[in-house]
């Protein structure tokens, strides 16, 4: 029997993979993909809770699924803008390695 905890565990593991990717990788595009993984891990736990909390008719809580729909839409817009920023950065600096981009660091 699959429990709510199993879904939360898998979602947490996916979030941790994305988190580790953001912390460990130095390629800005891979960091961006890791951010997408973390967003999707959050979506998975939202949908799991939506299925878990049924209303008086025994239906899942569809408000959470509408929320996930909004998150996916905003994430798609975010990817488009983020990748445009990365392209502009690459044009200006000829690198996508975050250690080479340190103007704001010191």
């Amino acid at each position: 029997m699959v429990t709510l905890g199993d879904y939360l565990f898998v979602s947490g593991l996916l979030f941790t993979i994305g988190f580790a990717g953001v912390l460990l990788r130095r390629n800005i595009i891979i960091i961006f993909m890791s951010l997408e993984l973390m967003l999707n891990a959050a979506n998975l736990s939202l949908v799991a809770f939506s299925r878990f909390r049924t209303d008086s008719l025994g239906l899942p809580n569809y408000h959470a699924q509408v929320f996930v729909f909004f998150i996916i839409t905003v994430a798609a817009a975010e990817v488009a803008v983020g990748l445009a920023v990365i392209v502009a950065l690459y044009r200006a600096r000829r690198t996508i390695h975050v250690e080479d981009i340190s103007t704001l660091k010191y």
Partner: protein
Amino acid sequence: MSPVFFWLASALMLLFGAAVIMNRNPIASALSLVVSFLGLAALFMSLDAFFIGIIQVLVYAGAVMVLFLFIIMLLDLRAEERRKINLVAFAGGVAVAVIFFGQLCLVIGHLRQAKQSFPALPLNHPDDVRSVGLLLFGNYNLPFQIIAVLILVATIGVIVLSKRELR
């Protein structure tokens, strides 16, 4: 939902998710991300969220990944050469991630509801596309319109950012 299906989809999603951050080649990472998102869509469908699962495949595995691959090929990125990794920073990053996951497991372990399985749906329930659509165009009509404006703004922003001369 059968446990075999659940664990298969989870393993697929997690293995290819790990492949995303371990590959040196950005194209291999992007393709692993597609498979990872397909596994996630399967998990959504195992939770009876068919609409979200289909949207996941269309938007993420379709549109977003095409964008990623397009940018990787536009910038002509090759597998990055190995650089000297900063061992202290690497160990610190791994430690933070492991501690985070340990805490998460602790919280899930203390959650009483986490040990319950999902309640069954009534036999002839309305399909979820109908229910989500009713909410989306009823309760959440204003946020829906605002999202449309947001996407328009994002599109204009991307065009401005992509101009050759930024002023």
